[in-house]
């Protein structure tokens, strides 16, 4: 009888391999072609796992099963398969549906259990101290439900297990230090990039510049940089006026000394909302070296020019390259 598996493909294949150690598991992408080339002499002892077959493929698989030609299992990314099809109904009746769903982001207990179950069947061990690292840094991905069109973030077990297998092939016991080289995230921190700009470290700034643009986009990068520079301008201004009391600086950066000071054009009090600043952020910035207000002002000017240029000029990459060079030479 056929079976349905859904969830993490890599985990399903591993489970099938451990259940059937002497059987070849064939992951089938093109079911129709595979069924055409089926050989009762060579394929009889294989398990064919059909990857997300459509309704036509499922009907063809059913025909093959009725002729008793091979072991054919169905694999789906999630549990939204078409329950109206005769083969799926038959499988449901005998309860041959196996859930290998990806753990939802935040469900660390399920992630821990899945990892433990997987490691049990491997030749290597995973030290207990690794779990905290994995839970913190486990790769994630978004799954979009075909039925509800809702997205959910899940732990990417396929990628994680492949990485563990790779490390396990050279280390019998995996320790946290072995995992530290596995960087699953390719996102760069914009604030680290801005600190490189202010410290004039051109080499690291150039290295992460392209990644930042691909993650954020040109305009978002410039706007975030502008916002950070406006904040730094007010902190730097306070430093130049020898104001080191963080409360005073908070007031200064929140523009409390200016907001509501003057009447509006209609000679009435103006309405305003204070943009609250985090005092811890200010304290951190006070401990650092801040560029002078003059150079920050120049940087702000360059950034504004570049924002204008990205919205009007067609050659955005040239604008961005020029912006980076100007920022590093202020």
């Amino acid at each position: 009888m056929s079976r349905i598996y859904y969830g993490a493909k890599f985990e399903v294949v591993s489970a099938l391999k451990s259940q059937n150690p002497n059987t070849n598991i064939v992951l089938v992408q093109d079911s129709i072609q595979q069924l055409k080339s089926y050989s009762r002499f060579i394929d009889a002892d294989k398990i064919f796992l059909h990857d997300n077959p459509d309704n036509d493929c499922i009907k063809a698989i059913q025909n093959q099963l009725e002729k008793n030609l091979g072991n054919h299992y169905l694999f789906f990314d999630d549990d939204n398969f078409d329950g109206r099809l005769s083969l799926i109904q038959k499988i449901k009746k005998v309860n041959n549906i196996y859930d290998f769903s990806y753990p939802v982001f935040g469900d660390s207990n399920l992630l821990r259990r899945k990892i433990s179950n997987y490691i049990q069947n491997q030749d290597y061990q995973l030290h207990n101290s690794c779990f905290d690292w994995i839970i913190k840094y486990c790769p994630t991905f978004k799954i979009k439900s075909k039925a509800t069109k809702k997205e959910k973030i899940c732990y990417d077990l396929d990628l994680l297990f492949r990485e563990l297998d790779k490390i396990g092939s050279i280390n019998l016991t995996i320790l946290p230090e072995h995992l530290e080289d596995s960087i699953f995230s390719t996102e760069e921190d914009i604030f680290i990039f801005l600190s490189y700009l202010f410290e004039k470290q051109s080499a690291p700034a150039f290295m992460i510049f392209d990644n930042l643009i691909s993650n954020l986009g040109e305009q978002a990068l410039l706007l975030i940089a502008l916002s950070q520079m406006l904040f730094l301008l007010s902190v730097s201004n306070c430093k130049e006026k020898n104001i080191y009391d963080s409360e005073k600086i908070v007031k200064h950066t929140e523009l409390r000394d200016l907001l509501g000071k003057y009447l509006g054009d209609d000679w009435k009090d103006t309405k305003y909302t204070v943009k609250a600043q985090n005092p811890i952020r200010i304290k951190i910035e006070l401990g650092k070296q801040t560029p002078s207000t003059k150079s920050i002002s120049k940087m702000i000017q360059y950034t504004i020019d570049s924002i204008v240029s990205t919205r009007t000029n067609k050659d955005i990459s040239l604008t961005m390259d020029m912006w980076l060079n100007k920022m590093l030479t202020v």
Partner: protein
Amino acid sequence: MKFKLKKCEHLNKFQLVSRLCKTGVSSHENKSINSDSLVFYHNDEKLYLYTSNTVSSILIFLCDMPIEFKNFALETKLFTQAFGNFPTDEVQFAFVEEENQLVFGNKKTRVALKTSFASDIEDRLSNEFCIDKKLEFSKLDTKDLYNALKFTSFSCAPDFDEYPYTSIMFSIEDCKFNAQSSDKHRISIYGNQDSDQSNYWISKHQAELLSGLLNKDSEYTYCISKNKIIIKWDDNIFVTSLESNEYQSVFNSFKKFFTDSQFISSAIIDKNEMTKTIKFISGISGSHIFHIKTDGTEMTISSSSNDKGAVADKITLDEEIISFEVSFLVSHFIKVFEILSQDHIKLSFHDYNGYTICIVQEQSFNHIMFPME
């Protein structure tokens, strides 16, 4: 830089390069040398042709060239087409470096092709041909390798089929090649089936390319390093990537068809007569399956289809054989007959789990054809 080439002497080199480019799998984008680039490479007062399709690479000696010039690349397809169709045998070449152009022709006809500077050619060569490394090369038994590829490449599965059936598994034992392939409906085995040597995999396209460059007049040496087979002859080098993986158990299970099957009967048939008969009946009936029925010294070959009708033909055998009935694919029989050199072929019929399989043997070659329903 100027040189002369005779088309009749060099056309086969360009055709080989063109074939290599056509079997490419992907291209290196944004690089000076792409998978469809043909590089004119100058080294040690010699002019070479270089091309790579990311799986296989070739460096062919073209002619002596005392004048130094910048290595340049151009589009292979365009060049081979222009050179191949050139109206005269002798063609003069001139590379105009300032204008990035290769001009070739004679007084009457002239072709000018745009070129690009092949900047990373030196790195490519040292990476792909392992020129810097000290490798031990062995003498290649050209005929043996040619036969190994010839007797196995025809029974590989098409590209879209399941791996590893799309490739040939081979091993080398005492400088002799053993090879196996199967498309799951027939099995070809060349040489020793039980070799305990490391196995390598080569795709059908690579195998055909390799057998295409083997020439009985040249002396070849070979070396396998980092899953690449490097073949050298004269001043030429050919490299193709191999795969070494866990799939050997899949092909090693083929021996069960020899050991677990029961011999039923055998018949010696005239190859030409059988080929003509099969082609005739399948042509008339329009079916890709034919039926064999034996009775005494008679072998009836028939074929039928619902829309065109049925055809039958009889072949008289020299010796009596046991009565049985079995069906096979027409193309499988025709193809194996084309490969075999003997005029009279012995067809052995064996019983495997209630099915009649046909085994054909010739010296180091064993071939199994599975029946159709």
